[in-house]
């Protein structure tokens, strides 16, 4: 039976039989780029967002204030440029720019990871800035008031809460990245969309190949969004708590003894 004689489902099966390896490899590449770049993008986003929230102190000298202003201006430009231009063009710009201007041949993987990371970073920076600002200022005052330093307050109290605030956006970015890695096919990265184009180009079965590829994309994004939901609920901790019992107190307190007669209060 030739491809032309088959019906829709037979063609789908045919594609799956012949190309399941390529499809899986494409999906794996897509996922790898999406996960790595979302993680790197978060690191960039947290760094940039953090700097954007720094307010100059009264005590700071002119130089320190000036430096902060310049750094903030550069970071703002980065955010605006990368949010304001299509990633496909950025990919071409960086990949071909590096080779023609600096004679550097970025490998496909390097180029792909750089582009998607700095793109995600630009989006995350604004999100993180908002996430930090939305943490109640009382949290910082509580931390400073017991003697935690500026950076300890940030790392131990503010950022973990900001991270929780931006988790839904991190999830969003991951899903966007899973889909948007398709633009990397412009620089020849063999990811899922590239695989789709190869299959449809070889067999002229656009509809069936598109259906299969879409299903794979959907499985990837849906699984990720479920997993991230689960992570968020883990971060929130259990919705109820156990009252500590005599045994637990003896265990957790280590040195102090729980006085049975006094009970839980006073």
């Amino acid at each position, binding site marked *: 039976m030739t491809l032309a004689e088959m019906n829709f489902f037979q063609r789908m099966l045919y594609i799956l039989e012949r190309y399941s390896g390529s499809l899986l490899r494409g999906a794996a590449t897509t996922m790898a780029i999406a996960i790595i770049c979302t993680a790197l993008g978060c690191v960039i986003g947290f760094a940039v967002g953090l700097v954007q929230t720094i307010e100059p102190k*009264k005590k700071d000298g002119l130089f320190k204030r000036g430096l902060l202003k310049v750094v903030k201006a550069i970071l703002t430009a980065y955010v605006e440029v990368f949010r304001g231009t299509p990633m496909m063009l950025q990919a071409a710009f960086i990949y071909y720019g590096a080779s023609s201007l600096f004679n550097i041949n970025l490998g496909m993987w390097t180029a792909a990871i750089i582009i998607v990371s700095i793109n995600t970073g630009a989006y995350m920076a604004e999100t993180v800035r908002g996430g930090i600002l939305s943490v*109640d200022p*009382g*949290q910082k*005052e*509580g*931390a*400073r*008031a*017991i*003697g*935690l*330093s500026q950076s*300890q307050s940030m790392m*131990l*109290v503010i950022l*973990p*809460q900001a991270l*929780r605030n931006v988790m839904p956006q991190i999830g969003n970015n991951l899903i966007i990245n899973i889909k948007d890695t398709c633009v990397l096919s412009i620089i020849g990265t063999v990811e899922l969309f590239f695989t789709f184009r190869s299959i449809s180009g070889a067999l002229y079965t656009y509809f069936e190949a598109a259906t299969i590829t879409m299903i794979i994309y959907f499985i990837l994004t849906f699984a990720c969004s479920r997993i991230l939901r689960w992570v968020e609920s883990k971060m929130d*901790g259990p919705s*109820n*708590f*156990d*009252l*500590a019992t005599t045994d637990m*107190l003896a265990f*957790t*307190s*280590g*040195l*102090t003894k*729980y*006085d049975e007669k*006094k009970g*839980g*209060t*006073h």
Partner: protein
Amino acid sequence: MEEILKIEHLVKDFGNNKVLKDIDFSVNKGDVISIIGSSGSGKSTLLRCINMLEDATGGSILYHGKDILKGEVNEDAYRTRVGMVFQSFNLFNNYTVLDNCILGQTHALKRNKTEAKAKAMQYLTKVGMDQYINAKPRQLSGGQKQRVAIARALSMDPEVLLFDEPTSALDPEMVGEVLDVMSNLARTGMTMLVVTHEMAFARDISSRVMFMSDGKIEEEGSPKEIFYNPKSERTKEFLSRFTNG
């Protein structure tokens, strides 16, 4: 008597709004000082300047003779010695009750975990919150949160504790449990500076009362002097609002 804090000619402006105008007083070991006064008179600002959450505009705050405003004492180390309890609790939302009381000890005081845990348990037991060590702040009532906040401050073994209206955000039925804890602290010799609208606490528990009005200390004295024999017209007028209302 050992002098811990000496505030001299303290001034604080917010722009051209003069909020503290030449404040002078000292805090000795074992003092329980209540600061009363109407809204906007600068009570919170005074405590926040003492804790360095606000930068004072002028004057000096001497901690054992060293001026904290001139940077003669390390800011973070100073804050571990002069703790603060807020009206809005400010417990760390991302930590359990126990960890709230441990975090400052292990990171600011560099105590080891076992010692910090023991200390935290000691004070959580003291405020009656030892059963709730695994709870997160959002799972507690206001009164419980404030008792944990007090335990957190105590866990640092501070020399002085500043309280900014610790019961004002609480439902009436929870005010008592927090005041009980504070009264116990006062009896055990803790040095405390308490901004409060609880006149009974100011009258019965404190060793000294300061009445603030319009950015100045209008009158200062023993609870007896302030409550039963106030000299200033403003003090009389302020107190009459409580006795008649």
